[in-house]
């Protein structure tokens, strides 16, 4: 992982917007004591402190007193408090015991109610996120299915060329709807490189259909949008290019398939 990538993870983490796999990845780095990740996080944290400290506002009177009262009232419930000797019990009249029992029950009801409602708030939040994610996945899947069901969709098989003879790929291509591309058996691209897919129509210059990378098993995929001005594609090809892709192919060709 390079510095910029760590910087991006740290910035998102400090801002509170990191999620899913990236969140797990960055937390693993922090847990492992990764010096770059910890330094990047400290820098982001200090910046946000600077931002907050630039606009202080006097806290309302009473909050501090309320806190100190709360602390004084419940010293024993502090999980991090060092263990202190228990106060010696003195014989007490029954009445205060009953009263304090009733108060404790009331307090417990309030606390339980509050914690249940806050648990539900969190749960609702998580459910709303899950639903949004599922909807997005569903939309993507529906787009794929629509392409597969359309008789106008072409299926083009791409075969591996000398840099990766074992590589194979399929392109499901629909001129109006776009396409789905799946490749297997490709080597992991070197640092700073990625695979770029090209559509070749007639004798025109190849048109970029997007950039993709592959996972550890050599599999990669790409959702391709309709290419403006490209109707009848004769061939698809994959070359190795700098990350982000180029307007025209420059690197070695890894896959080629004619329709």
């Amino acid at each position, binding site marked *: 992982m390079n510095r910029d990538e760590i910087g991006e993870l740290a910035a998102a983490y400090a801002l509170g917007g990191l999620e899913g796999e990236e969140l797990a990845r960055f937390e693993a780095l922090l847990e492992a004591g990764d010096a770059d990740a910890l330094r990047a996080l400290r820098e982001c944290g200090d910046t946000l402190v600077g931002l907050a400290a630039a606009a202080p506002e006097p806290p309302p009177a009473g909050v501090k007193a309320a*806190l100190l009262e709360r602390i004084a009232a419940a010293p024993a419930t502090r999980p991090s408090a060092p263990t202190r000797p228990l106060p010696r019990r003195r014989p007490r009249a029954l009445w205060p015991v009953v009263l304090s029992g009733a108060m404790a029950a009331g307090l417990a009801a309030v606390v339980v109610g509050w914690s249940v409602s806050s648990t539900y708030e969190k749960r609702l939040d998580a459910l709303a996120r899950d639903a949004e994610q599922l909807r997005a996945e569903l939309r993507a899947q529906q787009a794929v299915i629509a392409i597969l069901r359309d008789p106008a969709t072409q299926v083009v098989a791409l075969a591996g060329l000398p840099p990766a003879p074992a590589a194979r790929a399929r392109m499901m291509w629909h001129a109006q709807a776009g396409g789905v591309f799946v490749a297997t058996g490709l080597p992991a691209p070197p640092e700073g490189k990625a695979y770029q897919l090209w559509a070749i129509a007639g004798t025109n210059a190849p048109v970029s259909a997007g950039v993709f990378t592959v996972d550890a098993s050599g599999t990669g995929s790409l959702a391709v949008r309709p290419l403006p001005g490209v109707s009848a594609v004769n061939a698809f090809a994959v070359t190795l290019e700098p990350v982000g892709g180029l307007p025209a192919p420059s690197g070695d060709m890894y896959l080629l398939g004619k329709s």
Partner: protein
Amino acid sequence: MSPLAPGSESSAALIAAIAAGDRDAFGRFYDLTAPMAFGLIRRVLRDPEAAAEVLQEVFWQVWQDAARYDPTRGSPEAWLVTRAKTRAIDRLRSVRRRDRTFVGPVDESVARRREEPAENPAVVADDRSLVQSALAQLPEPQRRVIELAFFEGLTQSEIATRLGEPLGTVKTRARLGLERLRGVLGAERLSAT
């Protein structure tokens, strides 16, 4: 140097004392950092009563969780800022949801006026000239990403959707924006002393 210099020895020492159950240390830490925390909470929550409640919850957590503070991850102030921001955003979300779920007809405009930061917080901020000037020195796209993340609590993919930009662009802007902000705030701190 201001007493809020991040990572200053005193705030770290105070947190350690709080973890050991020292109430005076808690009071001093509150005096030192509550204005910063409250300014931030107020930036997220317009309602002063809700902001005061959140402030109390945040410092209650400080008292309870001080032993879990990890200095390798940042200063006590950064630890506090994260908590204040998270709590304020949680509150903002729950108020919006309650307005939507339980109050019947949705009056978004009322909910917005009451709880949401204005569309462009840096413009409406009244006496928050330093935040304004620090953020104002960022290019607009970087500033939007930081505001949406930090003051409205959106995740990066939510920001990407809201702005109609690729996720990678949002990530880069967040990083560059914070780097730039760091330079700006560093320069201001120097010129203020």
